[in-house]
């Protein structure tokens, strides 16, 4: 084989898990190659090996026909391999040019560098002013800085790790245009994502990993998203059924002009958030993480204080504790599974007690009924298909998807009148995500008022009855899902940031 890049029989073992098991990967020059896989399938390990961050236990790599074994990212870069990480490593207080300069192995003079940035920006449609302070840039613009930083080194192989997870649909479209431009010039691109639709529009070849092994190499455009998802998961599963069309009902959970100050320097303040959800409705709150999602969830749950008005069944909630809110029938499921929704070093039985004491009456006069709690935990496990050896397992022993099914199931099994979930399927495998979405839809169809805060726009379009967008701590007017377009949502997501908005409509993810 005379591909541009070849990885053969790559293996890497961590304690207790084989992260990569004889993985093969080959990329042509000018190809945009997708690397697909669930969380924990070994994608990151493989990429770290290619970028010189990890040595493989076994296997070899060839780059341009030459034996390639980078000992460090610096060596990888010297060989023409560059990587844009999912989490940026930029200094907020420095300018674009300064940030790019510190990342370079031997930077040119400042004026030459700035000219270079300008030129690359023009050539690849990545407009950015080199003298701007990074702290003032939007997330999409920061990503451009990262990409330009990579392009400065003239990479022959560019690795992009989940690049669109932080972008609005418009920004994603712009990024795809840039990537196509690069590929037409012969740059090989390894594109990592779990968003199947965007891979289907962008890539002609995909390597699919599951539990550290390559399970399939295929053309994603000749497969349906469902087929790809099943390849990733390794079994067939049902997608969540469509939402039930909701009639206009009386508001059950209602916020009017809800505001709260940021708890920390890096937190986001909420200002004037208003929404209302009725019985049987699912309100989707879209937006890129870090725009007040955590704060909104905490204000509704009762973990944070706020001013304004928050009413549930007509009762004023502000000033009521989290347990009082639970007793009233308002339950919440936070974003982080370990350490917030669940205590990692505690058994599932103990974790079942964590939020269910009030509604399930699991204690009497302070004495915990462990038998009843255990039965409750078992019912969650069977009802939501949690794969686990038993209720005595520690929460940390569960995979992300299984634990998420457990913590969301814990709230749903209490049959709440209203449920607020934050990022319910974040980092969860596709099969578990489908089960969770279905459970949320079922809860609403039984009359529950559901609020889903999620970064995953496809998820919200799939199951919510109305959608609002949270951006910089402000919530847009909720609109019926049938009356709002992806484009509109994208504008709302990015609009307040002041970032450039692409003119073309959603071509990427339909």
């Amino acid at each position, binding site marked *: 084989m005379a591909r541009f890049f070849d990885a053969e029989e790559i293996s890497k073992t961590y*304690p*207790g898990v084989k992260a990569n098991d004889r993985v093969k990967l080959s990329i042509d020059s000018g190809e945009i190659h997708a690397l697909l896989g669930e969380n924990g399938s070994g994608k990151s390990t493989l990429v770290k090996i290619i970028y010189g961050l990890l*040595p493989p236990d076994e296997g070899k790599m060839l780059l341009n026909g030459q034996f390639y074994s980078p000992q460090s990212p610096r060596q990888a870069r010297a060989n023409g391999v560059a990587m844009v990480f999912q989490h940026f490593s930029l200094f907020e207080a420095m300018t674009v040019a300064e940030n790019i300069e510190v990342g370079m192995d031997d930077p040119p003079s400042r004026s030459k560098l700035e000219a270079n940035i300008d030129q690359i920006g023009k050539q690849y449609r990545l407009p950015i002013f080199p003298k701007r302070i990074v702290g003032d840039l939007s997330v999409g613009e920061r990503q451009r800085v990262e990409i330009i930083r990579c392009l400065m080194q003239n990479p022959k192989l560019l690795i992009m790790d989940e690049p669109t997870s932080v972008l609005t649909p418009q920004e994603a479209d712009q990024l795809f245009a840039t990537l196509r431009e690069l590929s037409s010039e012969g740059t090989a691109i390894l594109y990592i994502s779990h968003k199947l639709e965007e891979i289907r529009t962008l890539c002609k070849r995909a390597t699919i990993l599951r539990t550290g092994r390559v399970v399939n190499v295929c053309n994603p455009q000749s497969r349906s998203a469902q087929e790809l998802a099943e390849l990733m998961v390794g079994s067939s599963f049902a997608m969540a059924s469509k939402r039930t069309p909701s009639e206009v009902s009386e508001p059950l959970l209602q916020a009017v002009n809800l505001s709260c100050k940021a708890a920390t320097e890096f937190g986001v303040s909420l200002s004037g958030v208003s929404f209302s959800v009725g019985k049987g409705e699912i309100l989707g709150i879209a937006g890129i993480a870090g725009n007040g999602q955590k704060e909104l969830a905490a204000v509704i*749950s009762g*973990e944070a204080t706020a001013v304004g008005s928050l009413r549930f069944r007509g009762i004023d909630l502000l000033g009521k*504790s*989290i*347990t009082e809110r*639970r007793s009233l029938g308002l339950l919440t499921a*936070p974003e*982080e599974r370990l*350490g*917030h*929704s*669940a*205590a*990692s*070093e*505690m058994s599932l039985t*103990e974790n079942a*007690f*964590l*939020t269910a*004491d009030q509604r399930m009456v699991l*204690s009497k006069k*302070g*004495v*915990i009924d*462990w038998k009843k709690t255990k039965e409750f935990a078992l019912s969650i496990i069977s009802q939501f298909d949690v794969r686990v050896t038993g209720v005595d*397992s*520690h929460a940390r*022993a569960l995979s992300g998807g299984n634990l998420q099914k457990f913590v969301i199931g814990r709230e749903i099994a209490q049959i709440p009148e209203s449920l607020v979930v934050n990022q319910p399927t974040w980092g969860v495998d596709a099969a578990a995500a489908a089960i969770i979405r279905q459970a949320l839809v079922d809860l609403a169809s039984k009359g529950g008022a559901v609020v889903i805060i999620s970064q995953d726009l496809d998820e919200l379009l799939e199951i919510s009855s109305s959608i609002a967008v949270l951006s910089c701590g402000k919530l847009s007017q909720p609109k019926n899902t049938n009356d709002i377009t992806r484009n509109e949502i994208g504008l709302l997501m990015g609009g307040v940031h002041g970032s450039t908005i692409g003119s073309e409509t959603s071509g990427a993810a339909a």
Partner: protein
Amino acid sequence: MLQLEPRLENSRIWIVATPVVAVLCTLIAGGAMFAFIGIDPIRAIQTIFWAPLFDPALSGYAMPQILVKAAPLILIAIGLSIGFRANIWNIGAEGQYIMGAICAGAIGLAFYPLNTWYIFPLMIFAGLIGGAAWGLIPALLKTKFGANEILVSLMLVYVAEHFLASVSLGILRNPDGAGFPGSRNFQQYESASNPELIAGTGIHLGVIFALLAVIIAYALIRFHKFGYYVNLTGKSLRAARFSGINPARLTIICLCLSGALAGLAGMFELTGPAGQLSIDFNVSYGFTAIIVAFLGRLHPIGIAAAGLLMALTYIGGELAQFMLNLPSAAIQAFQGMLLFFLLALEFLTTYRVRFKLKRDA
């Protein structure tokens, strides 16, 4: 090459085996040390561990002494362990012990020479309150101003020691004591004394209370919401908040509770084995109890066992000191080894050691 690997689940075998293996390692290393300084290791170890319990000539004296020493250690350690489980680090039990004793003593002396039934219960109450109040200070400073409770509680030990010196030389000094420092002797004041319940056994009310504390703490941790909340707070503060726990309130409760139990221990010590308030009333039970709490893995039953073991090494050490002329430093080193091995081996419950031949990369 040796490699350490985190275990996916804590090893149940090692949780049980650690204390046994640690004691064995201590016997071997300690024996080697005794041999090195020219003392027959078998005899030394036998004197420390065996004689106090089973030697008919010695156990009559040693057994009651073990209970007398173990009772305050266990009582204090139980209180501390509940806070430790919630990551609330009260290391000032020594101060709370002193303040409990002073408060109880002051109440008792206020009634002198009246003899009625209610004096002793009042003194118990005063002991609890005195210790709890001394624990409340770091609790309030932590919850209101974010002060570190480790530092504050520790520094309050020194304040309490000076206060003890002041009252033993000042207002609580025995007026009939010919000017000697120290209070009246409570053993000679019937209504305020805590004598042996059964002569020659060492069992006084403090021993009974220590046993009660172990049972109640076990029930709380196992079956009660309070125990659950304490554990949850220690494992994840955010999950605890999410569950509905008010961490500030829990901090106050835990520090007051551990303070109260330390104060109670001080009260029983004052009215029983010690007899009087004096400058050297406190003998570091409050600090040793921290070790006992950890030796017992913060578990009430474990703490009871650790308290008894600790007391045994003290009494056995004393015996070895005057019977074999073992230097006291050697005994302290021996006790240190026991701690060292216990804590070092605890590592094995969460990590696994692998032998691996390193291959060339």
